């Protein structure tokens, strides 16, 4: 076998999200099930496909084609958890496997070569074992690289050794999204616009041209299209095992506590790996329970990010502990299942490769010390004490503010890229406030705002604390009406800028009959 190719077998459960959803809700296999994400169907089972539902259509279209289809929302946690419980079964039959994504595992064929006489026998044996054990239907694909095997598994093909470049050449460029949708998404659209419709067309370009035009990402896509591994294997023998053991006392069954420990350990591990100038695309996580049982799993990581590791530890532990308590059907000791928490966690780099280029910026000044200081503050005052700013979509500063605690993933509720008609123009207020106030006119009555404007001129602004400001000038009122078609989401408010005698300007908003301050120009 040539040194650069790793012949891999990929076992995948097609339509995994729909299968997991059906299993959770207890629906039978013949009922059509579809999973909705972001308003579009991302996964539907065979029964739904027979009724005409495909991925990419919206909920209304799906219900039109098949009125009795059961639709649920996509839940990543659910997908991972259900798959993790099934993987325990796989561990008995497979010696070494890596979890690529929920519903997909990859096994290097070199590991199977010793046990089974030929590839066909190996695949047949494995497929029957896993299908019997978990009850899910698996498809198998074999090819010379992991990416090609993933594509082959979608059609249950076996690519003969050496035929991988030809197999890949026939695939459309959108197949790159299977490798990593987030990273390659934009690149795929660019390729399509340049006329590179198939991976074969992409592979015909030279590596130098790809690097000049698209940089490292383009070179990675190019290597995938040719069936080569993205990172280079390291030539020399690994000098040092990159491994971290974290004892957890008292033993814990809580997934979030384990993921907290895992995050810190992963940060240390990755720092050590980066310092050695290497890249770790797959990580092995081992959990040891107080009773001595072990659960080890290898996960593929797209990036060396400790948050990804924390999530995977949580999924693995939740899946394992759920499986354990189910298995302990006749506990000898009543408290055995609960007390049997995880007492040790080991993170080990399963694969170490040389990266195509260095990833740290030369200009990040002292960011390591800043992290240390901010984490210290978070340790003293809680994670909400330190927050970083981001912009999200919205019409006013109260809506566009997104303050995320340091080192947490931001979760914007509204997209900043979408157009927001009726947005407040510059200058923006500096302080966001939410205090109810009274806005009175000359007669001492509250100013009424109508779509055509204000009924009377505002003269006095009274805060809840009793402080009063005389108003010298005000802007025209801007009404905003949104979501009127859905009573649960309907918003109607009127915005007004007022200027007080002392020079302070406020942004007011009238909603549900009450005036509030939403911004202060300070």
């Amino acid at each position, binding site marked *: 076998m040539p040194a650069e190719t790793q012949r891999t077998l990929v076992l995948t459960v097609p339509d995994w999200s729909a299968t997991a959803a059906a299993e959770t809700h207890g629906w039978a296999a013949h009922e059509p099930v579809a999973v909705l994400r972001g308003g579009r169907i991302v996964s539907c089972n065979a029964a739904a496909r027979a009724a005409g539902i495909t991925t990419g259509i919206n909920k209304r279209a799906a219900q039109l084609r098949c009125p009795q289809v059961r639709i649920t929302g996509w839940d990543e946690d659910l997908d991972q958890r259900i798959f993790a419980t099934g993987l325990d079964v796989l561990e008995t039959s497979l010696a070494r496997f890596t979890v690529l994504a929920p519903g997909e595992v990859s096994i290097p064929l070199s590991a199977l070569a010793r046990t089974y006489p030929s590839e066909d026998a190996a695949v047949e044996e494995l497929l029957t074992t896993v299908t019997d054990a978990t009850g899910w239907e698996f498809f198998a694909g074999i090819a010379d690289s992991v990416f090609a095997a993933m594509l082959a598994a979608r059609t249950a093909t076996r690519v003969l050794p050496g035929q991988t470049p030809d197999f890949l050449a026939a695939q459309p460029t959108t197949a790159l999204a299977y490798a990593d949708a987030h990273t390659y998404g934009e690149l795929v659209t660019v390729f399509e616009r340049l006329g590179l419709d198939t991976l074969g067309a992409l592979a015909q370009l030279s590596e130098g041209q790809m690097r000049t035009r698209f940089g490292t990402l383009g070179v990675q896509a190019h290597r995938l299209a040719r069936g080569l591994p993205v990172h280079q294997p390291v030539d020399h023998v690994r000098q040092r095992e990159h491994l971290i053991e974290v004892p957890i006392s008292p033993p814990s069954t809580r997934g979030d506590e384990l993921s907290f420990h895992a995050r810190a350990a992963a940060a240390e591990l990755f720092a050590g790996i980066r310092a050695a100038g290497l890249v770790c695309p797959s990580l092995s996580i081992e959990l040891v329970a107080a009773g001595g049982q072990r659960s080890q799993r290898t996960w593929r990581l797209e990036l060396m990010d400790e948050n990804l590791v924390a999530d995977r530890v949580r999924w693995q532990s939740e899946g394992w502990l759920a499986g354990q308590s189910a298995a302990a059907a006749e506990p000898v000791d009543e408290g055995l299942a609960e007390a049997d928490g995880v007492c040790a966690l080991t993170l080990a780099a399963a694969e170490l490769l040389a990266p195509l280029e260095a990833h740290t910026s030369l*200009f*990040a*000044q*002292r960011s390591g*010390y*800043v992290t*240390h*200081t*901010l984490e*210290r*503050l978070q340790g003293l*005052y809680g994670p*909400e*004490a*330190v*927050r*970083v*700013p*981001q*912009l999200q979509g919205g019409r006013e*500063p109260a809506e*566009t*503010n*997104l*303050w995320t605690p*340091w080192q947490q993933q931001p979760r914007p509720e509204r997209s900043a890229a979408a157009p927001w008609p009726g947005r*407040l*123009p*510059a*200058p*923006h*207020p*500096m*302080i*966001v*406030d939410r205090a109810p106030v009274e806005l009175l006119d000359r007669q001492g009555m509250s100013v009424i705002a109508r779509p055509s*404007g*204000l009924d009377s*001129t505002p003269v006095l602004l009274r805060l809840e604390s009793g402080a009063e400001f005389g108003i010298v*000038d*005000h*802007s*025209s009122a801007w009404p905003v009406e949104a979501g009127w078609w859905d009573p649960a989401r309907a918003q109607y408010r009127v915005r007004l*800028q007022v*200027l007080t005698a*002392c*020079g*302070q*300007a406020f942004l007011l908003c009238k909603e549900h009959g009450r005036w509030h301050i939403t*911004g*202060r*120009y*300070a």
Partner: protein
Amino acid sequence: MDMSVHHAVAADPQTLRKQLSRLPGVTTARELFTGPEPLPVDGMLAPVFARGGLPRGEILSVTGTLALSFACAAAAKSTREQHWCAAVDTPELAVAGLAELGIDLEHFVHVRTPPADWQRVVSILLETFDLLIIAPPAAPSPQERQRLTAKVRERRASLIALGPMPGSSESCEVSVAGWDGLHAGTGRLRACTVRVRHPRTGEHLLTWPLTPGATSVQQLPTASGAEAATCRPAHPQIQVIDGAG
């Protein structure tokens, strides 16, 4: 530092030079008189400050309406040059406003802690942050003030206090000269003329933001030069004496 200079005046130049070169952190003669290089500020704000930028190792107090906007505008250029800035216990800031002033959101952090603990938080932050904007609930006692100024000087950080702070080396009073754009209920706020009074550089008039129609979000305040020139008194210049002889 002042004491050692008085004593050394009588001694001969060689020992004077040796004594001065032993001062911690001071490497050039210019630094003795002018202090460390100030943190950069946007071009139009530079005339406001005594040294053309935010003084390092010192406390600047900003008072008046629009004090917070002024402090953020002063910090904007430094954040773009990779200096980290933290706002401690200020009211919730509008990110759109920060972005408009030109602050680099990647180098800005907002810290919310119990107000009574502000000194501890500030001393932790001073270890790595170059710029701090604080809004202390009450002025510190003399001992606390001494500790704070010593720490700020040692770290060469720039502390901007919103509100009067005794012990600050520079202070700016920001007030609104006028808002325009509201035409008695038919317009909207468009621009504000801000008056900044500094004891050493005098009075400056700035417009914030630029005229509408500018597409860039990073709108820098502009200075109306004529009035600024007439109001500013000549500030004393410290000349560096060449050739210690």
